[in-house]
């Protein structure tokens, strides 16, 4: 179960090398996303899709607001 994180905590995590994943559709990601985020739309969240993430570093996922 993901740990809920406030904005301040997210910024701390990013400062220590966390990976950001936006799960919105590609067109929303393309229009605007957080710096450094990669896009893995929720509907395409498969083991293959997340294989490129470094499991040794924290991963922060975000949607528009709550998932």
């Amino acid at each position, binding site marked *: 179960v993901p740990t809920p994180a406030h*904005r301040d905590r997210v910024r701390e995590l990013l400062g220590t090398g966390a990976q950001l994943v*936006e799960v919105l559709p590609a067109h929303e990601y393309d229009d605007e996303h957080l710096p450094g985020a990669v896009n893995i739309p929720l509907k395409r969240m498969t083991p293959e899709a997340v294989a490129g993430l470094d499991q040794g570093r924290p991963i922060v996922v975000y949607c528009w607001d709550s998932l």
Partner: protein
Amino acid sequence: VYDYVAGKADWLAAGLATVGPGSAGYRAGAVARQGIATCETEETLADAGGRVADSDWTGCVVVNSVRVVLGVLGAEDLAAAGEVAAGSVMRIGPPTVRANEEVAPLVERMAARAIDSILVTDPDGRLLGVMVRADAEAALARVGGL
């Protein structure tokens, strides 16, 4: 794995940097003045007035220790400068907008209500700046938005 529960909407509302063409539009946070005077409730009007003279706005925002907006002191409040505590005369709960508020419709609403400036805060109520309507109108005029 962490869930940034408040998500992109929260990030934008806090005026933080983003990437992509959608970030190019005029938003309140982008045109807000940031060098504005602040004081805490127990400070005097004399202290607050002294800071306003060196700031980019005629008022002073009353904040707590983590810059959450509590009230505002206008030029007329500060004209009575003295040893009175800012917290005793501040106007409580001034209207605010988030940093990602689109400027054009905001300017229209402000003009309709004869509001010259409005505070910009993040979703936690922390002060980011003040958007002066004249600044926003000038910015929009430069890009043909007015």
